């Protein structure tokens, strides 16, 4: 984990409203594992005050990529970054996905921008010899980001591409038809989707990890601001930033807020 000023080399639009920002950081590029995130200080000012957490989407050489939509002040500032701009980044942070089990088939399920960590996850899964199937849910064909992914199965809300409907049902049905021996699920996306994935994984008795999002103040465990309810254990809450963002389905209880 380092804290450093990094140079932005590129910000490009890769799908409807979705951008990829690339910055240079040999240390972060070297040390980031799939599912980990960086906490970005979007400007030097005091409003917005806090850093903004983003999953590392992909690493190439010394370059690190994050994927985001403009949803508010912080991402708006990020979207205006230009090559050469300098910003302060803290990372890599959090507990990565567990990719070294003895499962053979990795089933990646992503909803919306939950696709962010899937590229780097795919990189690592493949280099450790896993077979990867990827299920992407998006609002429409225009919102899809499929670069650097393997065996992509698409579901869109408007049916403009692939399966018309819920990506979890798509994955569910696919796995029923193609029973994967020793599979493991890796999911990221909206809470409602992650609940569905957990339910389905636990039911099907498939190992599964989900990556959570949630407001964070520090990203490094010093503010206690990012609790998620644990399923059992004497401590009631885990911290998304240091105990996660990746959790085993059965370890946590997701609640709609």
């Amino acid at each position, binding site marked *: *984990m380092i*804290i450093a000023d990094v140079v932005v080399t590129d910000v490009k639009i890769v799908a409807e409203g979705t951008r990829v920002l690339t910055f240079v950081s040999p240390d972060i590029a070297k040390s980031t594992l799939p599912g980990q995130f960086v906490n970005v*200080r979007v400007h030097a000012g*005091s*409003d*917005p*005050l*806090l*850093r903004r957490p983003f999953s590392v989407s992909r690493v190439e050489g010394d370059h690190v990529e994050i994927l985001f939509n403009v949803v508010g002040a912080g991402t708006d500032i990020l979207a205006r970054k230009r090559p050469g701009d300098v910003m*302060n980044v*803290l990372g890599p942070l959090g507990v990565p996905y567990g990719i070294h089990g003895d499962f053979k088939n990795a089933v990646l399920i992503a909803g919306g921008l939950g696709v962010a960590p899937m590229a780097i996850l795919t990189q690592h899964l493949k280099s450790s010899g896993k077979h990867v199937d990827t299920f992407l849910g998006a609002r429409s064909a225009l919102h899809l980001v499929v670069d650097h992914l393997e065996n992509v199965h698409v579901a869109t809300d408007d049916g403009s591409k692939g399966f018309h409907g819920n990506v979890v049902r798509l994955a569910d049905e696919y796995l029923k038809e193609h029973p994967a021996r020793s599979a493991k699920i890796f999911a990221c996306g909206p809470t409602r989707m992650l609940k569905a994935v957990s339910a389905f994984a636990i039911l099907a008795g498939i190992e599964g990890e989900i990556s959570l999002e*949630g*407001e*964070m*103040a*520090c990203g*490094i*465990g*010093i*503010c*206690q*601001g*990012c*609790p*998620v*309810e644990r399923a059992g254990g004497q*401590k*009631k*809450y885990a911290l998304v930033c240091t105990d996660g963002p990746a959790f085993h389905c059965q370890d946590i209880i997701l*609640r709609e*807020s």
Partner: protein
Amino acid sequence: MKTGFSIRGVEFQNRVFVASGTFGYGDEVKDLVDLNKLGGIVTKSLSWKPRDGNPPRRIVETASGMLNSIGLANIGVDTFLEKKLPFLRTLKTRIIANIAASSIQEYGNVLSLLEDHEGIHGYEINVSCPNVKEGGLSFGTDCAMTAKITADLRPRTTKPLIIKLTPNVTHIAEFARAVKGEGADAVSVINTVIGMAVDVKSRKPKLSTVTGGLSGPAIKPIALAKVFEVAQMVDIPIFGIGGITRLEDAVEFLMVGATAVQVGTANFVDPATGTTIAEALESYGRRQNMSDIGELVGSLIVDKKASVLQSWM
């Protein structure tokens, strides 16, 4: 040039501390910050038993600030002694244990237990806690109760006893005077300001606890005014706290009368803020040819006529 100061015989190497609840127990950030450069580390509030804290959502960003309702989630004093204190002992930086409780007895029990251990150099008492006996009313907004807590704790230790005051009262100086009267060595000013935020879509409060504590640059002007009020009315060392993010902020607090400052929310943006300010403050003092950074304390030049006008708003 002298950078340090002392309270009740305890020497602090400089006047820049980190505030309770914004720096964990120190060890979490040891790779990012040179902990030995801080004037002092105030621990997360410690209670007798571990506390899970409040349900999510616990934090909300606001204009140049943030609301929190952590609910004093903490590992409890036993785990602190076992898991955290040994590391803190290895530092040359002074450690202030911050104590939270829901009864006068609990405050006393926690402090007395900590007294039995090496490596704690003083206590900061968080009185912004619900008094269970009084149906959850905060101790800190009741002057008599705040004094009572101080009176009960004073005989239990010869180390510096710092009472952390809440800004959510009409006349904070009365509280400072009261705790001084009961033997407090210093006061910390301020804790967070009560605030809230609403999620318009769901029509629900953003925080699970409805209201929470406002912190960050947004409250700096409020904190400065509170420190100034205490400094004008009561002769007691003050830890100035509230929205400090850079050197100038720290200097402002010292000038209005703070003996030292604590950096809080800014640690979430950069945990090295405190050490950065400590170093900047030292070079600032040298540039100003000071022999002691303490020369800044209470150095504000105030026009006498001013006070007459001030209350028209």
